[in-house]
């Protein structure tokens, strides 16, 4: 007997390339879920990894950084928040 597959429909979950089972430090939702404002996960609600290696939903960390009391620091480690290659002015725009 010889078995040949003509087609194979597989199913997979996608996940961010992050340590598993972690949640966004701000909204406490899993990374694969959305921030509290978004509807669709994934590209519509991406993650942002700070230079301090803490990661958040982009919308979450932006709205945090826009607050004055944040002093542009990471809410987890209180280091100055900066993102690789992402100009600060963009944050202001968003």
């Amino acid at each position, binding site marked *: *007997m*010889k078995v040949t597959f*003509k087609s194979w*429909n597989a199913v997979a979950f996608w*996940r961010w390339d992050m340590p598993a089972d972690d949640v966004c430090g701000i909204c406490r939702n899993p990374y694969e*879920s*959305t921030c509290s404002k978004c509807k669709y*996960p*994934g590209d519509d609600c991406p993650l942002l990894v700070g230079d301090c290696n803490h990661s958040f939903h982009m919308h979450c960390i932006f709205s945090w950084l826009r607050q004055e009391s944040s002093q542009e620091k990471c809410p987890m480690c209180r280091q100055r928040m900066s993102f690789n290659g992402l100009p600060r002015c963009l944050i202001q725009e968003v």
Partner: protein
Amino acid sequence: MTTSAMDHSHLIFSALFPVPSLSHTTPTPSATADLGFAQPGEPFEGSFVNNPAGQHRTARRNIAWSTATGFLALPKTTSDSDGGFRVHRPLKTQEVEEALRYLLVGEGKSGDAEGVKQEGLLEWYRDEVRLHFAGAVRPVVTELWEKPVSLQHAWDVLEETQRILQQDQDQCLRPFVEHIAPILTQSSFSSSMTFNANDDSQNGPEALYEQMQRDIHALFAYSIPERRFSQTLGYVLYDAGCNLFRLYIRQGKTSETGASEDTRAIRVRMTNLLQNLARVGLGGDTAQKACAHAMDKLMASFIESHFLKVDWYSKQSIVSQLQTWVENGFAPLVHLAMECLQCDLTDQETSELQQWQDMALGRLGRARVDNLFDFVINWAKSLGGILDIKEYLKLPDAKQYLVTHFSKQISRRLLHPGATTTYILNVYISVIRVFHELEPKGVLLERVARPIRRYLRERSDTARIIISSLLTDINDAQDTKFGPGSELSREIAREMQKPMTNLNQDADEDLNWNDMNWQPLPSDASLDYKKSKMDDVIWFLLTLWDRDDFITEMKTIFGEHLLKCQDPEYEKEIRLLELIKIRLGDDKLQACEVMLRDILDSKRINAAIRTNLTTVPPSTPNNPPPHTPPNFGPKTPQLRQTRSSTKHRTPAPTSVPGAAKPEITLSAQILSSNFWPTLRDDIFKIPTPISELQASYARQFEAIRGMRKLDWIPALGDTSVVLELEDRTVEVNATTFQASIIYAFQAQPGEEWAGSKGKGKSKSKAQGITRNVEQLEEMLQMDEGLVRQGLAFWVGKSVLRESHQDTFAVIENLSTLSSSNADDAAAAQEMAEAQAQAAASTVKSQTDLLKEKKGLYSQFIVGMLTNQGNMPIMKIGMMLKIAVPGGFPYGGEELKGLLGWMIEEGRLADLGGGVYGVRKA
């Protein structure tokens, strides 16, 4: 004996109250002349001495009395009256004439001249009539009426009775009219000339005649058992009515003869009978009542008759026919009967017809309402019946009647455990449609549907059926899908076909001041009545539950459906989601939207990756081998050739992928894990070529979507497999685990080698490759249960057979298969199909989840019972719901099962009465 007792009591009675009939004299001349006697309390000699003229008068009166009474006497026994009551009355001589005159208007008129009340001739005659009746007529009549009258003879008995009585009446009244009345008339004429006209008007001959007639009628009436008479008369009238209107309700011969009878003849016969009955005094209240009963019954019969059957063909209301009948058939008949019975009709005329109309309509309506459930089931064909009920609803009280009775029918015939949820849903939809026709405002529907809705809410599979039916395409679904035992409702699927309407349902209508078409709520609306577009069946179904419950259920079913769905456009799913978003608000439906988007996105990614794989060949580790046929020209036969050739050339299938890979189209559905319901997550090894393909697919995906990775779920998905066996090629659509199992039956490197070289080709081929369950578990790292399910599937397809216990072999050649094996295959196929159904559900069922979380729950229960002592099962369930993270979504039955399992484990003890406690060591 009774008669003697009667006589006795009569004697006693008459001793106190003198009754004329007892002192009645026989009109024979032999009777000695009564010379008078002193009345008690009267001076003995006084009257005699003071009244010599009176003495003479008494004697004379006695002579006249004898003459007159002898002349007027009537026969006293039935034998006398033989031959039709013809009595040979002696000739009226001068003597008689004078005697009559003397006794009636002359001095002998009454014997009270001396203060003695003597019997007058008229009174005597009255008694005579009475005695005559008792002796000569009553026995005949009694004989007729002694026994209950059979229906066949009803007409005859009545007519005979009437004839006898009529004769008797004539016989009794004739002497009066012929002999007594003229004398009285003469006298009253002369006396009225002189004086006292007023007095005479009361005692004049006409009045006397009437009184006489009344007496006779009273006699007649009392001689006939009233009840029996009225029943018989009622029947006769009813019978006449039935014949007149050609209602053939009675059984037996009579109906046929009745049918052939001319209606005109019947009408005449009935009219005559009634008129004659009225003439002998039987037309009074009793007859009227009987008539009323008969007409009542007639109306009922007419309504039940074939004239008023539900119009199943042209689907029209038959109320107008009924009204015509009442107006032109029924009412005239009643009037005729009443007229014949000489009833007073003047005061009823005007309003009566309307009353009859209403009465008839009410009966028709009630009769229809009693069958309403059947109309609902046969809706659309039963429109005629429904329209009848619609007319009926205009009557007062009709709505109440309809609601109570229909609710009863529903609870008896629909809301019981024997009815499937699909059936109930279908009936509910019919109910909605029927009541939309009945009453567009929906107040009735709301009342009637409440129990159905409550019941549907209690059924656990309702939501599933509704949603999966909504997602079914009615056009391409086979008929078997909607079979009686099916879980899909054709009605719901059909509703989904209809274009969407009334999208602005949620707008608050009460605050819309510009709505010029605003109307107040119906006056009989209940408090929670909500205006709805009545024909929107889906709206009714979607509002069955609280929003959240529904959405939870919806998520599960929607997810499962999306994974299975073959429709490349997902039109239906998109539409359903939009529909539900409109109905339930879109804030809670995020998960569904994400799921839908995942699926749509996956399609795009698949397309992108596929083009990448073909246009950028270096991405795959092995280039397509040179002998792969070009993409032009007829494909399939060449492909087969290629494959079979590879088989011969290459010993192990694991090395084949290089050649075979481009032929496999791998497509993937990439899901966002947090938004899908809990899916099956059995883990096993999928065939190597596929896992290699998946790996390359994942690389492509990571290239397209940065920072993301894929976690494959081997248990989900499906595949189309081609099996090339020695004598045949089988193409099967299978799930991934089934495909993996059959793939494992391919010869491993070494085995194949041994088979073809060592033992001899023919034997090994005929035997096929065998594997046992344990081997497979190890090879695939798959659960035993899943392995067995997959094996059963392939046995059912006649690809494998169970050669020994737990050992399966490939059937390379069907001809080697014995008939018993074929039977086995058939049996296995059935089993496999059943199992496949269960296994096919991609989403974990609640029961699976319960099994999974058993440990968690049991630990919690033990802890709780240890800390807080013994608890009844209700409380345990409640505490679980409150305290367990994630809730406890199960009911009492499941909890009971769980507790039972824990008792078996020896951790709990059932303390009786539903109370459980920790077992103490």
